[in-house]
């Protein structure tokens, strides 16, 4: 198990998740101007909602690291270990997000944790579809697409979940569905000869 934790960078992943929670708490409601296709103007995007993409990238890298061929034929359930790592990391950040939001420390804390869940789910789907090198292309593209097509005010449609606030139930459900799909695909994945 020690070898597995080293190969799958468990310590680095835990550190990254901790740093993400701290950065989300520190970011407050700071926003970066980004263009909107719908509004035709720059709209502020909370940094706290974009930061989880970096955390999701580290997490997906950790979950998919190591020799895939060996893990496919291992006696131990290596894929399950990876899924547990992903679920534990996301669960930890989700708990911290709940504390941040409902403790009044950071209104976007739960939203950031929800984004980690959803973006990690998309990364796991991307990993299955395009291989692990390009796993994060799908969540990155999705996040920036939502930034470009949002309207900046009023309730968000469920598919714009990365930009919804913490109280948006539909956004939380959509992100959870993406996470569950990604996790199931990860558990059922098999190494593709020639794939990375």
């Amino acid at each position, binding site marked *: 198990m020690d070898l597995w934790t080293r190969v799958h960078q468990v310590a680095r992943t835990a550190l990254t998740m901790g740093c993400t929670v701290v950065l989300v708490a520190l970011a407050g409601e700071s926003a*970066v*101007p980004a263009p909107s296709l719908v509004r035709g103007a720059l709209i502020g995007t909370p940094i706290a909602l974009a930061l989880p993409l970096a955390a*999701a990238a580290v997490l997906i*890298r950790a979950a*998919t690291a190591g020799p895939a061929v060996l893990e496919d034929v291992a006696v131990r359930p290596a894929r399950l270990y990876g899924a547990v790592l992903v679920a534990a990391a996301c669960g930890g950040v989700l708990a911290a997000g709940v504390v941040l939001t409902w403790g009044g420390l950071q209104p976007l804390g739960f939203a950031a944790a929800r984004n980690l869940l959803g973006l990690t789910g998309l990364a796991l789907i991307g990993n299955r579809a395009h291989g692990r*090198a*390009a796993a*994060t292309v799908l969540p*990155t*593209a999705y996040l920036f697409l939502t930034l470009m097509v949002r309207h900046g005010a009023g309730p968000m449609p469920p598919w714009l979940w990365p930009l919804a606030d913490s109280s948006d139930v539909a956004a939380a459900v959509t992100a959870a569905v993406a996470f569950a799909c990604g996790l199931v695909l990860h558990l059922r994945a098999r190494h593709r000869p020639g794939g990375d």
Partner: protein
Amino acid sequence: MPLHRWLRSAAALYALPVMGVYLYLLLSGELQNIADNWRDATVVATSSGVMALGPTCAAVGAWEGARLRRGGVLDGTPVRRPAAVLLWSALPIGAAAVAVLAFAFALVTPEVGGIPGAPDPPVVAVGLLVIGAWSLAGVAAGRFLHPAIGVPLLLIGTWLWLAYPQALEPLWIRHLTGENLGTCCSTDTVLDRRVLWAQALVAAAVAVVAYLVWSRGFRPIAVKAAVVAVPAAALVVAVSLVDGLGADSDRPRTGGLECVREQGVEVCVWRERRARLGYAARLVVPASRRLAVAIGMPAPRRITEGAARDRESWHFTVAPQAGDDDVVFALATGFLPPASPPCAKDREFDGDAAYVPVGTWLAIKAGLPRAVVAAKTGPMENGDAVTRVLARPRADQIRWFRRNLAALRSCDIRPVDVE
């Protein structure tokens, strides 16, 4: 390697549509705000280019860097120098950046079509340097980071560095990034060259460190020293260059006037507006004589869009699409200070209350009908004050004007009869 195979493996080719669409999104919101000069058009095009291309090229660079690492091009005995290897990998990124920047200029050119001038080469060069530097930073990061981490990290990191300083203080931070959107340039201003030097220095430092790290890794002591010393030195010099600047990166323009003599008065407009020089001269010279009589000053020898440096020079503007009334109104209100003095916020009375009445009085004295002036200044709460002043003897009116003009320029003088 066959050309088609080389291009097929270039990530920049696949990212090109994303860069183009993102640039179009950024630029389309700015097109109608471009001032009637090529400096503003250049800044808008390059800044949008830097915002759209910087993060994307950095992410593409991270992918290319990881690809070179997986290919083992830096391991073993080298056949080609690292610079040659890097050049062939970075060439598609550079070509994509140039193509998208050309697209940006194709979008802004119709907005400034027919206006004399051309894109400002140093601004374009610094924009390309910034994009190139972050592309190299991506390649260097790709040597150490798996693309699943490197691509989103470089995308978000570069995006934050380019966009976030606009919302930060101190204000000079925004002048280091290469993104000058909204900070320059109206037709009477130019981009402060210190800003360009600062941006070029920071970008060059990023590029040098990125190349060293990519080609030699972190281990050599010289690289470790360079990673700390080069950016630190560049930052110290760059910050000292932009430290005194406010939110904007422009400064008043000193050259570029074209002049004509009209009835013994020299009338000058910016080169970009030379097509309207004769028209403006025929309007402002008679209006200036009426104004001179009204305010008790000698008639001007020079009426200019540039700086009016003495009592014989008056200031005016011929904005694009301005009609007869607009030009005369601009001449009349050219006497008003452009902004309140810095001490204005501390005074106990409202010194700015004189702006509208004095402006209205000047415009009427320049020959504009009262209804036209009211349409420009909006509904006046103090219209009666101007009516009362206009009914006074000429000497009284001149005293009223001078007292209130002094009140607008100073914090110690209280305006009179403005309500």
